């Protein structure tokens, strides 16, 4: 029996280390070649590490949550045969990118473009090709200690950077150029596309989103409240309405129902449909219900606004959500259509998860997050019955909304959604 050490391979993206998010094997377990050993997460994506050889796991290199350097021992395997040594694993992009930051994201468009495959440097074509890597595979980049340190700080793998100095030495200028994305062309095709988009288009909005998020998290005293809602009846109603299949009407998702319910609920809780001016310390309660719908667009998160929902019917809401989402995705939404919300809904659609922690869309004071619905056994009257269950994860600005009020508000929403008829009955 020999020992093989499987090291954490270069997972690309210029990362030096990755967080271990999941073990797929345990000590004592035998694994086949190509069987997934673990999942690690870089800044951008989750990557699965398959086993390069068959063997029995004798030791794991880290605990879940631990950070492993590229090249660090991942797994120790006992293998058939005498020889011992190290083997390299080849990383594999996991199916679904792991969204890391908390964000009120909307109808699911799979996350950032950065999650597209980036080949490890060994798989790149060798020099001589018109677009090649900066240096032959396996060759160490040459750079002064100061350049190496800066690269490390910026999370840049110097192997990806072209050196224009003598003997291919990488100088500060080369690193600057790389950081600006100018040398994208020499790294890999995938990086070209990504970086170009980032610099030319996305950065501005991304930065705005980032600033807004940070600002919201920094200034708003967030708290979240999660409640379970039985949407069986609602789903039945929705299915029936959609079954009519009228070409002049948008297909209904859960969102327009929720919008209608919100209109009813905020009538009783006017402080929820409000803007908090924290400089002036005033709360502006709005009679008009302008619902922001967090929407994932190719450029990033946007929040188009359906104005005056209190004056709109179900189909109208549905149509307006659709129209605005499309406009936002195509970059055609007007400034007006993207501002002026008084309360926001966020939904990850089928990706919705069990619980999220939405970020309040400052200066609003409440945001309602829709989680995924699923049929679950529910104990009712002495037996389990299958019910379609869904969570609502809502966040509030604790500076002006008390927990008790928030809870009652969500209870009101729950009651409306569980008996959907009440949403539409005048005196409910």
């Amino acid at each position: 029996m020999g020992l093989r050490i499987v090291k954490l391979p270069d997972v690309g993206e210029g990362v030096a280390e990755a967080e271990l998010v999941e073990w797929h094997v345990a000590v004592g377990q035998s694994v086949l070649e190509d069987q997934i050993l673990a999942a690690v997460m870089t800044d951008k994506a989750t990557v699965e590490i398959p086993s390069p050889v068959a063997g029995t796991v004798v030791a794991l290199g880290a605990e879940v949550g631990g950070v492993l350097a590229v090249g660090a021992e991942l797994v120790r395997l006992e293998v058939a045969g005498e020889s011992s040594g190290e083997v390299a694993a080849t990383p594999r992009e996991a199916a679904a990118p792991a969204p890391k930051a908390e964000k009120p994201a909307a109808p699911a468009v799979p996350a950032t473009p950065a999650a597209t495959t980036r080949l490890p440097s060994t798989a790149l074509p060798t020099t001589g090709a018109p677009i090649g890597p900066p240096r032959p595979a396996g060759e160490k980049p040459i750079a002064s200690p100061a350049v190496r340190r800066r690269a490390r700080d910026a999370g840049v793998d110097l192997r990806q950077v072209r050196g224009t100095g003598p003997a291919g030495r990488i100088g500060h200028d080369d690193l600057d150029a790389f950081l600006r994305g100018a040398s994208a062309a020499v790294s890999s095709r995938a990086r070209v596309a990504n970086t170009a988009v980032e610099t030319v288009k996305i950065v501005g909005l991304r930065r705005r989103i980032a600033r807004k998020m940070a600002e919201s998290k920094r200034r708003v005293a967030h708290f979240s409240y999660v409640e379970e809602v039985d949407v069986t009846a609602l789903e039945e109603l929705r299915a029936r309405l959609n079954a009519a299949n009228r070409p002049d009407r948008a297909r209904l998702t859960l969102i327009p129902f929720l919008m209608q319910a919100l209109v009813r609920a905020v009538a009783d809780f006017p402080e929820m449909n409000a803007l908090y001016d924290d400089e002036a310390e005033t709360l502006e309660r709005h009679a008009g219900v302008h619902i922001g719908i967090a929407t994932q667009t190719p450029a990033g998160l946007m929040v188009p606004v359906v104005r005056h929902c209190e004056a709109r019917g179900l189909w109208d809401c549905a149509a307006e959500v659709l129209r605005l989402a499309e406009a936002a995705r195509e970059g055609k939404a007007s400034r007006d259509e993207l501002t002026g919300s008084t309360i926001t809904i966020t939904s990850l659609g089928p990706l919705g998860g069990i619980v999220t922690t939405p970020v309040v869309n400052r200066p609003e004071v409440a945001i309602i997050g829709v989680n995924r619905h699923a049929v679950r056994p529910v104990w009712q009257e002495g037996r389990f019955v299958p019910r379609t269950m869904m969570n609502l994860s809502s966040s509030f600005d604790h500076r002006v909304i008390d927990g008790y009020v928030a809870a009652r508000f969500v209870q009101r929403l729950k009651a409306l959604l569980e008996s959907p008829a009440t949403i539409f009955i005048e005196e409910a």
Partner: protein
Amino acid sequence: MAEIAARVLVLGGGPGGYVTAIRAAQLGLDVVLVERGGRDGGLGGTCLNVGCIPSKAIIHAADAYARALEHAGDAPFGLRVGAPTMEFARTVEWKDGIVGRLTGGVGALLKRHKVKIVQGNGEMLDGKTCRVETDTGPQTVRAGHVVLATGSMPASLPALPFGGRVMSSTEALSLQEVPGRLVVIGAGYIGLELGTAFAKLGSKVTVIEAEERILPAYDAELSRPVLRRLQALGVEVLTQARASGLSDAGDAVLVAREGAATRSVPADRVLVATGRRARTAGFGLERLDLTMNGGFVAIDERCATSMLDVWAVGDLTGEPMLAHRAMAQGVAVAEQIAGHRRVFDAATIPAVCFTDPEIVTVGQSPDEARATGREIRTAQFPFQANGRALTLGAEEGFVRVTARSDNHLILGIAAVGAGVSELAAAFGLALEMGARLEDIAGTIHAHPTLGEAFHEASLRTLGEALHI
């Protein structure tokens, strides 16, 4: 039991440990440093107390004495001195003074950076907790990060356990008188540095080495001038020889050589300098159950052990066991704990051998470079052709440069000669900055200096030497 909590606990106050502590404190972390002191440690560790510094002090004193003797004999430049004598006890006192100043300095530095020093033997109870036996009773230190820096200690030979006449480098550096007959076992740098010094101080020295040649870690080209000098000093060098024990009377070392009868070499003192091993016992390492790499604690390029937030630096982590490596690792670890992305990724770790003449190497030797399958060019420039070397009366030796054939990137630089240890800075910088031969060739080197030999060796590698 008293308990202290800190962000960082450093176990061991040698170059690895104290540098980690200072750097971490600079970065605003609160640090506790545990150092037990004692015969072969204390603040500054092996290096300041019983290693680099005291050995260099003795070497310098021995050099000065040998030179004075030389000048008393035949005077190459007309200097005449009377019959010099050496009061060795004073030498050792002077050495101890230097050690005292430096270890005191380390203590002051640590205090200035507000590192809390806990004096006593530390033992890890788990990956976060250390129990220290202090003079005033046991003390527990709990920390978020633990840096192991317990260093190394002399390895003994089963056939020649330490005690009586048989000593390690630690005792050799504290001898009160120069031994009449000294047998040195092991012709690595520690054995030869001390053996040469004692030869100069008047000992009859015999060196016993199992390998084919002295300084087996260096290539023959570099070790040859050292061998010649040893012979000139009257040192007997027995290679491919093994010390198999002491004679019955205990006053001689039995030496077995291939194809020869066992010899007994009379000895007043026997210095066993066959290597050092990591100090892995006595501090609860077994409780941490870390992945090991032979006799060393295994670390990755970040100096992280197999346990989260447990780090290891210095001799404990293996070769090359050098003080500057330990310090550089300490800096990398401290910065990582403070949240920076760092690895220990030096292009080269220079190595210096303070023999006579001195040897310095950075990067690869020609053979090592060739072994990577690369085409290389290499050239030497002899000190015989260097003006400064001649004025110093030190024409033995050379500077050698090795570079890639295709782009002239320098892969390795080595030198052997008097005072070449100081060239380590230039060599290291060249390699670390990724210099090409043309960069060195294009740098004006001050005249007359030994460094010009580096310039000329680079020129010669390019086929453009001016002074040869």
